[in-house]
């Protein structure tokens, strides 16, 4: 039996167990334990190419994304400990799944999170396009109830938009899948694995592949949060609880991106990249532009982070569009951005806990109330904006390098201009939250909780350390993983 199947089975069983479990304690311990096992399994996996008949398999590309997923999963599980405790404190009554016809968030939190992780794992390790598609759909379904935490108008609206827009996207992606099938009609085999498609690329009908890519890009682009299909993203991220937004922003968009990369691989095999390049670059630019438009005016910190996610997704797609050295940059950027954004959402959660608000104008003089979190926030924001030393600096530097080498001056100039605007708005937001003195009116309204639990900021702290180190020196084994992934996408090193 293939080792990677454990990655799928592990969370699912854990989810079932926690659904059946009778005690609250179990929810608390199940996530870290599962994460631990998950990581240990990944450490034993060696990326191989997948045989044609298999449903699952791990090649160098999916291995990289598994690493990302594992990191994010670990982070979320650590953070969730306090969160679950908090949930139980809020409603300590019996462990029924439903109260008056509606599920109980406390009850479903751990199982659903595990199921989301399971479905994301499925996306990454499945070697067939249909299967990937199914898992993406599943991840949407499982994550929706997790978003629906504060049971009020806004959250319902967010969930509704998330589900609806994503389902439209998923349906479009399905059209892409059909187009692939049509393209592959000359192939003897009907159930197609990626490798099989890539190896027999010469037999594929090129036009259909292009159409398939367009549909897939737009369909999964919705899930990924690529402008102009991003519209659900700020709502969902801002209304979900911190660990969930962290999970979504860290892992889910990466998974969608992974699927797009699969289609990109096929497109590259039939070398029809030229058209895709323009599409990717223009979508990416648009995403960064959207972030620039809103980062100046948005006053809700979590929405700000959501927009920055859109921006970084845009950077990813630009990098893919540019190709060459930029592919390496994209691989690095995917890892770094997932970690940074995941940590930042956790920090935002801590701020929410302390100030019971994420409104930038209502959070004041954090440096004196929650010093550790504010330092983390500041440093992580600098990292996110691509200030060195950080992996993100390296990746953006490399992307700029590619732009200079292919002399895309227009792209380059707009790119740096927008990034500067974004940097301005983020730094001013951060300094406002952390340094501006507390005014009496707010102090009367809210009671600020100044206690900082280690479990809340340990994972951001670790990730911050990793990010800074990546900016100075990338360890050999990780460099190896990156380079294999780049080879799989045909980038230059």
């Amino acid at each position, binding site marked *: 039996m293939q080792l990677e199947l454990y990655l799928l089975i592990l969370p699912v069983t854990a989810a079932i167990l926690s659904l059946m479990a009778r005690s609250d304690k179990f929810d608390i311990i199940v996530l870290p334990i599962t994460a631990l096992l998950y990581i240990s399994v990944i450490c034993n996996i060696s990326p191989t190419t997948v045989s044609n008949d298999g449903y699952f398999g791990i090649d160098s590309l999916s291995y990289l994304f598994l690493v990302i997923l594992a990191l994010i999963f670990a982070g979320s599980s650590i953070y969730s400990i306090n969160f679950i405790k908090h949930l139980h404190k809020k409603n300590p009554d019996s462990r029924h799944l439903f109260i008056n016809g509606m599920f109980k968030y406390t009850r479903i939190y751990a199982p659903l999170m595990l199921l989301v992780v399971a479905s994301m794992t499925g996306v990454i390790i499945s070697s067939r396009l249909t299967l990937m598609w199914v898992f993406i759909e599943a991840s949407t379904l499982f994550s929706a109830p997790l978003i629906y935490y504060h049971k009020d108008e806004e959250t319902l609206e967010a969930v509704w938009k998330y589900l609806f827009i994503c389902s439209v996207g998923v349906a479009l992606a399905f059209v892409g899948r059909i187009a692939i099938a049509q393209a592959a009609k000359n192939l003897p085999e009907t159930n197609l694995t990626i490798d099989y498609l890539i190896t027999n690329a010469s037999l594929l009908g090129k036009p259909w592949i292009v159409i398939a890519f367009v549909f897939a890009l737009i369909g999964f682009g919705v899930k990924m949060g690529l402008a102009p299909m991003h519209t659900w993203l700020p709502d969902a991220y801002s209304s979900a609880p911190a660990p969930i937004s962290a999970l979504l922003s860290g892992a889910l968009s990466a998974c969608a991106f992974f699927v797009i990369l699969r289609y990109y691989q096929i497109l590259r095999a039939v070398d029809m990249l030229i058209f895709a390049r323009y599409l990717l670059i223009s979508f990416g630019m648009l995403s960064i532009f959207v972030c620039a438009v809103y980062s100046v005016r948005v006053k809700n910190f979590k929405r700000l982070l959501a927009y920055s996610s859109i921006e970084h997704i845009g950077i990813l797609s630009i990098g893919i569009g540019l190709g060459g050295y930029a592919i390496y940059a994209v691989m690095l950027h995917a890892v770094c951005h997932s970690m940074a954004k995941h940590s930042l959402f956790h920090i935002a959660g801590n701020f929410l806990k302390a100030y019971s608000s994420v409104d930038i104008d209502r959070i004041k003089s954090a440096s004196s109330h929650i010093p550790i979190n504010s330092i983390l926030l500041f440093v992580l924001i600098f990292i996110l904006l691509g200030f060195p030393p950080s992996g993100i600096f390296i990746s953006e530097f490399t992307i*700029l390098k590619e732009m200079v080498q292919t002399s895309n001056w227009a792209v380059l100039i707009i790119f740096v201009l927008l990034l500067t605007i974004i*940097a301005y708005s983020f730094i001013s937001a951060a300094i406002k939250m952390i340094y501006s003195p507390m005014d009496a009116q707010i102090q009367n309204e809210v009671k600020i909780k100044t206690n900082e639990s280690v479990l809340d900021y340990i994972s951001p702290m670790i990730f911050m350390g990793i990010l800074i180190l990546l900016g100075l020196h990338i360890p050999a084994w990780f460099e190896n993983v990156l380079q294999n992934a780049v080879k799989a996408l045909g980038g230059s090193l």
Partner: protein
Amino acid sequence: MDNIFIGLLIIIIGGILSIIIDQFLEGKGLSGYVLLLFFIIGAPFILIPSIDVLITGNVYTASYNAGTPMNQIFFELDGLSAIFTTLITVMSALVLIYSQGYLKPYEDKGFFIGIHFFFFSLLVVSMILIVIVRHSMLFLTLWEIMSISSFFLVAFEHKDKIARQASVNYIISMHIGVVILIIAFLLMTNKSGSMFFGDFRKVFSANTFSSSIIFALFFIGFSFKAGFVPFHTWLPKAHPAAPSHISSIMSGVMIKTGIYGILRICAYIEHPLAWTGYFVLIISLITGFFGIINAIAQSDLKRLLAFSSIENIGLIGIGIGVGMLGLSYGKPLMATAGFAGALLHTINHSIFKTLLFLGAGVVYNLLHSRNIEIMGGLIKKIPVTSFAFLIGALSISGLPPFNGFISKFMIYSGFLSEFRDCSNLLLTAKVFSAAAFALFGGLTVACFTNVFGIAFLGAYRGQAKKLTPAKTSLWMVVPMVILSALCAVIGLFPAIIINILQSPLQSFNLRYLPAQISIAASISQVSLIFVSMALILILFRYLLLRNKLVQTAVTWGCGYESPSPLMQYTSSSFAEPITRIAKQIVGITEDIKGAGKLFEDSLQYKSNSKDIIDSGIVENIWYLIQGFLNRFTWIQCGYLRHYILMILITLLVALLLSIGSFVI
């Protein structure tokens, strides 16, 4: 070479320890001493090799393999770097000593002194590394670390809004600068094929137009740090906002890293195209004029000093421009004088500008205000500081026998040498720049007579009782005394420092001609004569008045009976004859309430000056951008159907394009 790294390690450890002590060990007030101790231990490791390089003129190099992404990284300590390492170390040591006294009042007000000192050490370490590193990516990394750490230092007094805005403004300017630098470096590495600085030489030696464009990019990128007009806008904001020792380290040392960058790039160009030289010269002339004319108009002491820093950066830039012109026209004497003058002025400026900012800090601690208009008569309260400030003012005005004159004279000799077979353009440039230089000199005199005369002399303009007899702590006095001594020594015996400058000039593969040395000798001669003559006259006066009774009386008010301190000439009125002429440039806005009527019971006059480039250009650009962005806020309108419509349109467009690209 490794010694330097050991020294840096010690310093950074000191910084970390100071955080730990301040935050966790509850050792309030100790953190500064800890860092100072480590600094004193670490400094020799850096100074000894640097001074060795400066004296013997040999070059240390080191190269390590840092793995990805940096790969092979290179360090080099040549004359040019050594000058800067020495400067940075000495100045920051003095400033650190000063800060022990300066930060005392802040300790019990909930400022994070420990973190402050940590960032201080980080700033110093990054600056020193910047100066010795020769690897593009690492250079950029360190460059940004420097910016970020200084950003936190500027935001130290984060309780007031101005400081926060200033720091944001500062970091963004730095970000734009570094982006331009990144592009320049990328173009460079793209041509030279490696991240190693040494390979730049062959790109520049190709001496094409594109390479000179790259140079221009480098220059602009570094100008953001150095503060050349019109990239200076952060400077007058950040310096007043920062605490004085930080302003002094920034203005005295940090902006010089920008100069270092420009000089470092120049060192790789054997024969620059003439237009780059003129480009640098013209920008520097504009900078100098804009800086000093605005400095005169200010009434905020530290803002004034900030503008004067801009002016001095302009002077340094003029030196660089002269040097480049000398190189491009193949006139060694001119080139030598230009670059030597630029380097010398860099050193001098960092000495006396640090001195002046430290003095300003003492004044601020005494009055808790930076407004010159309410000062006066401080020389009676803080005599040592005042005399130090006077020496600083004399030096910055470039008057003999102080160090400012030496460097200015050096640059002059660049203008006034080698008139033989010059093109008319070059001649015009030379003589006009000389005249402009003279004009700046005159303006500087006007500016600093104003500051010193109004702020330190005369009678105190505020309520005298508020002006408690201040006993400035020894921590703060000693550095100022040392610095003023340096000013005088360099001014009186320039030969020493000019000899030291020989090894940096080797980086430009230039060599001294004996002329400079001899001139330096005669200058010191004549300065000594001047000093002795002044002393003789003072003695003579003393002897004349020895056994006569010297009576004191109230100042002759032309018959007016009861003069009050508020009747003294104010700073802005002192500057008026100049600012009236340059009204547009200094952006003076006046409003007079209740004028015009006869027998006015209350008459009110207010005037302030704003940076026209900041308020006129930068802000408008920002408004334009914002307006443009606000046009697109319909994207996130909240209607689900619009979102779906966007997807639909995107899909159709993409599909038609893709299918069309097949059919056609």
